[in-house]
């Protein structure tokens, strides 16, 4: 008797003869499976988006360097490439955006408004998700070179000086310093799956200019607002 029941279990014909209770049970199971599949799909979509956007952004970046104007990566995009962050030792590169709010970070590392552009004197901060683009920050070591190529063609080499873990609002940067510093920020711990107050910071200092680099530090900076109603 037992053997017979087990043998008949996979039979699809059994479903048709379900009792009401069994039907409800099966329907619930279906919903749960669908929800699970949806969540997995959504998670994979986030990662796929991060990867695909980088491909498109890479193209837009080359276009931007060629034209000198930020080019949209796709026609309805609200984001624009700002610079390319290259990690020569790891053989990876990301196109960073000029925005680090809301959805922008889904597509690439974002520049923190209020900090200077890379290459200029002062602090320049980029942030990216720890499980997409900046997953590799864990592999970046002190002494590594980070190469930043801006869309105006200027090229800067930074050397990683230190990495540290800070609370999101307690990164005591030396904001008055005129030393060109690049900081890359992502969430800590790198392999956790819930957002927390900690950030992993990789800081790098600019190396003396390479041959091609221009002198963009003299460009105008917006420094004051006129308050007018």
């Amino acid at each position: 008797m037992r053997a017979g029941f087990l043998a008949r279990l996979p039979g699809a014909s059994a479903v048709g003869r379900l009792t009401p209770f069994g039907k409800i049970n099966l329907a619930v199971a279906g919903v749960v499976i669908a929800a699970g599949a949806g969540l997995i799909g959504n998670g994979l979509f986030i990662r796929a988006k991060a990867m695909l956007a980088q491909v498109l952004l890479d193209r837009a970046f080359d276009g931007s360097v060629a034209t000198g104007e930020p080019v949209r990566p796709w026609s309805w995009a609200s984001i624009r490439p700002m610079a390319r962050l290259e990690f020569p030792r790891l053989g990876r590169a990301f196109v960073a955006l000029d925005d680090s709010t809301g959805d922008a970070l889904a597509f690439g590392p974002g520049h923190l408004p209020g900090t200077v552009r890379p290459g200029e004197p002062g602090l320049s901060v980029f942030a990216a998700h720890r499980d997409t683009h900046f997953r590799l920050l864990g592999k970046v070591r002190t002494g590594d070179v980070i190469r930043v190529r801006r869309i105006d063609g200027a090229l800067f080499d930074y050397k990683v000086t230190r990495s540290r873990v800070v609370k999101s609002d307690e990164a005591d940067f030396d904001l008055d310093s005129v030393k060109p510093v690049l900081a890359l920020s992502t969430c800590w711990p790198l392999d956790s799956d819930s957002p927390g107050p900690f950030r992993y910071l990789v800081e790098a200092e600019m190396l003396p200019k390479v041959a091609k680099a221009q002198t963009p530090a003299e460009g105008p900076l917006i420094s004051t607002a006129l308050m007018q109603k």
Partner: protein
Amino acid sequence: MLALPAQAAPSETLAGPTTTRAAGKTPPAPAKKETTASPVAKSAAVAKKAVVANPRPNPRKLDAAAGLVRPDQLRTGGLLLETRRKARFLRAPRISTDMRVEVTGPIARTRVSQAFSNPSEGWVEGLYVFPLPEGASVDDLDMRIGNRRIEGRIVARDRLPRNLGKAARYRSLAKPGRDGRRMFISRVANIGPGEMVTVRLDYQQTLEPAAGTFRLRLPLSAAPVSVGAGKTDDRVSVSVDLKAGFPLGKVKSHNQEVATEPKSDSHVLLHMTAARMTGKDFVLSWEPAASDKPVARMFRERVGGSDYLLATILPAGRDPSAAKPARELILAIDTSSSMAGLTLKQAKPALKLALARLRETDRFNVIRFGTKAETLFPASVVATGENIARANAFLDDLKGEGGTEMQPPLEAALRDTTPTDEATVRQVVFLTDGAIRNARPLFKLIGRQGGRTRLYPVAIGSGPDRALMRRMAQLGRGDLVSVRLRKDVGRRLVGLFSRLEAPLATDLSADWSAVRIDGSPVDPLPDLFEREPVTLVAKVDNLAGHLLLRGRSGGKPWVEMVDLSKAEPGSGIGKLFAGRLIDRLETSRRAVPRMAAKLDRRIARLALEQGLVSRKTRLVAVETVEKPPATAGLSRALPPLGLVGKAHAGTGPVSTAAADKSARPMLLAMLNVASAPVSDAVAGPIAGAAGKLVLPITATPAQRRIEAGLLLLVFGMVLAGAALMWQQVSRQVKRTPRSGWEDWS
């Protein structure tokens, strides 16, 4: 300026006189007799007495005594230096002030150039403050601090960097002053010891004539100031290039003497003869000369490759012997509940007076509207005594109740029963205090009307949207009367009605067909009243062809051809054009909210093109460091911006640092002085602005979702398995014969 004028507390500050009063009141001793004492001694005395009289002295009074000011107390442009007291400043010594105004028709463009010096021997931070005249908008700025340069740039608002530096700290100071004046405030950081600060500021305003008189006011009411010990170096020069666009009648400077230099009947140059602050604003007024026929003039300006035209039309002066045109007056009165009380009480006598002044040949009708509209006569009637008595009774009965439905009464008021009677002017006065809920059908209704009807909406109180009402008036070829205070309703209505009695130029139209016009807002022209010019602006492809103006003046047809090539050069026309177009776009935006995003983009584009501050654009200051010149010291020798002027010819820039050393040590001690620049001039403000950098959250929910999804998947499968298993078990149980159970038991 640092040294207080010896005779009394500074009259430039509001708080100055208050102090004197306070000093006179609190102690029984007559403090006023101390006027001969030195300012410092006096300040100290005031402070001391305040302490004696009151154990907790009023800090404001102490501030005033010490010469500290708030930005909103300035009555002319000034450089304010930060002190140890929060939000209280010390005025930097003024070296020179130059204001040049170019008037083109109703447009006044003013260029203010001022120079200041840092009286201290350290680095100071400051604010440049300028009290703006009403309706003025700053569109350009150029500041020099040593070899640093701060330029104003118009930037789209959504492109503004989120963090604009320390400036944000001063945002609250940009509030209108106590008397409602708006202050232009810009931060000036890191002024070096003895360094000179020069500021150039451009602003534009559109002057509104009141009873035919244009009035221009320049904020210059500051006390004359002595810099250092007796050495005065506070030069002031004012010049006005007045191109009125009509033959000028009386031109009057109210507070200062001016030298005039007439160029033509409508063009005159004026210079203020005094070279010092006189303690009063510079006020200039001018009015048109009487003329027996309408006068049309034209100005041109080339901006960014396009030509802009401004035409002004002034009606002929009133000829007392000429008969006034016959009129048809329609009064539409809002009787919703909000009109009850004061408003109706004020309006009724004015309306009755309007009816009483109608002639026997005139016609009229009265409409009242609330939730429902009610028309007194089926069609307009002749203004006989009997009809007017009926109308007065109708007006007496008006009570405020119910809501406001505007469309039916407007439709009734605009309905013209005798459209062919061209000699009669049809005037609709539409009185309301209600909000316009759906403007579009109203606009359509008015736009469709055309013909000889003119609409004069009267907006009362804060309910009606003025921009929408103004558009209604524009489409209806009349103009808007805006009454903010309900107690003014009667007075303003009487003014309107007496004005409406004598339209001097009617049925005006501008024919641009001989001109290659380029996207200009061509609106129907309103009727013109005595001494009230109307202006037209247009963007044209080239300056060829002519503008044909038609209309009726004094009942007779009037035609004038204005040749475009003869247009005089003017300034600010492009901005006026863009400003008017933006106003129109803003109105459309309010009337059709779903178009908002599209219109916003157009507004931003227009404003950026013309360099205008609008809802979508802002003026920001951009700082650049000029490279030190190859030959060091050359830059010092060059006259700084704003000092190259007629008034300053022969007097080169003077370093006032030496003179300032003798400035009152007590005042200087209050300055917030640093021995070095606070931070690097270029990187400082931005990096410093971040102050506390908050790193964004950088974790996607991807991993969590995938994990949760997997869990759900497994759980679902287990559930499904369990369901099937349960099914199987229950079926098995059913199939098993009863005896089976017995076996088990």
